[in-house]
């Protein structure tokens, strides 16, 4: 039972971390609860569908279907995170100002919410399909499955608790700083996802250039441990990154900050539009 709990928990915390950060990043935006719920719900539904067609997805593209699917899912998430950060670079100041004044949710923009709902949905989809397959395996093997199933469900519950912990931990950050902190977190999250995506393309045999390992820090922190896995999701920690992964990581961060700089209002002090009066 403990084994099942740990396996499921390990998968759920990756998605949970992302959901927690997204919730914190949209603090004070009206209707975000609904959007995040839609994201989680469609992610769960998608995970079940992906699990159902796991065999067919694998066989697609000469056996590289699963890798390409993962790479595509991660790439879309990276684009959505960039979109969100660019949007926040433009509007974050107004939202923070309004939150301070009114002390309540503001109706600012549904746009980044759709982007983030998609990110949440994709994260749940990716990790969730593995949980579904694992739980299906327990069901299918029949005997003594009950204890394992309970363990699996407890793992999901523990993952949800971890999400709440991430969220409330981030909420402890003062309003003034929260958006810059979450923007940084999202930038690192996106860079890590992009590096993961190119590795999936490598596994698929599509991008094989620059595939030498740059360093090996598995002796220091293995990705197999829970802490290693957390850092892997949070900042893209990789125990043996390839040259391509490292390049992609840096390029994504660079593109992210460039985009945020372009999106930032030219002279914020003088040109702050209406809401601050």
């Amino acid at each position, binding site marked *: 039972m403990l*084994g099942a709990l740990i*396996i499921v928990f390990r998968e759920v915390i990756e998605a949970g971390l992302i959901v927690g950060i997204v919730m914190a990043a949209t603090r004070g935006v009206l209707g975000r609860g609904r959007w995040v719920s839609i994201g989680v719900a469609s992610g769960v539904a998608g995970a079940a569908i992906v699990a159902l067609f*796991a*065999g067919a997805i*694998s*066989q697609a593209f000469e*056996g*590289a279907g*699963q*890798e390409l699917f993962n790479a595509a899912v991660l790439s879309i998430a990276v684009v959505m995170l960039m979109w969100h950060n660019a949007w926040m670079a433009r509007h974050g100041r107004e939202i923070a100002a309004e939150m301070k004044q009114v002390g309540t949710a503001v109706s600012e923009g549904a746009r980044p919410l759709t982007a983030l709902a998609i990110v949440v949905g994709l994260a749940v989809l990716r990790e969730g*399909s*593995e949980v579904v*397959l*694992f739980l*299906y*395996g327990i069901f*299918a*093997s029949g005997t003594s499955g009950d204890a394992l199933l309970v363990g699996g469900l407890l793992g999901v519950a523990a993952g949800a608790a971890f999400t709440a912990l991430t969220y409330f931990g981030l909420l402890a950050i003062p309003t003034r700083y929260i958006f810059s902190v979450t923007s940084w977190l999202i930038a690192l999250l996106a860079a890590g996802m992009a590096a993961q995506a190119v*590795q999936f393309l*490598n*596994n*698929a*045999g*599509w991008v*094989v250039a620059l*595939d*030498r*390992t740059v360093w090996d820090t*598995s002796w220091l922190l*293995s*990705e*197999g441990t829970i802490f*290693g896995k957390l850092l892997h999701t949070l900042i893209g920690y990789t*125990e*043996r990154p*390839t040259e391509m992964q490292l390049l992609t990581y840096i390029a994504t961060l660079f593109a992210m900050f460039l985009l945020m700089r372009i999106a930032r209002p030219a002279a914020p002090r003088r040109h702050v539009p209406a809401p601050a009066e």
Partner: protein
Amino acid sequence: MRKALFGLLALLVLAPALARADDAPMTLTIRDHAFNPTEIKVKANTRVQLMVINEDATPEEFDSSSLKVEKVIAGKSKGIVRIGPLKPGRYPFIGEYHESTAKGVVIAE
């Protein structure tokens, strides 16, 4: 100039195919939630393909952070796992859904 460009293009298109041709296919079977063989020797510094055949009815996830692979193999199905180039050494892998029994190691030399 144009010829050189075409040559370069052809190389870009063909390079992945050539890389694939170098791969030595090897077979790894999952039965009763265990790998067979549990030790696989591969050539160091080359890309290698493993054909993983899952004879169990339940899915398994071939998982190895050292090999940089996470791949689900559905029940009664097979999948190709591409690894390398690896420096000489031992690279453990597990079946994540049955970690206590499904263990193996790739030895690059």
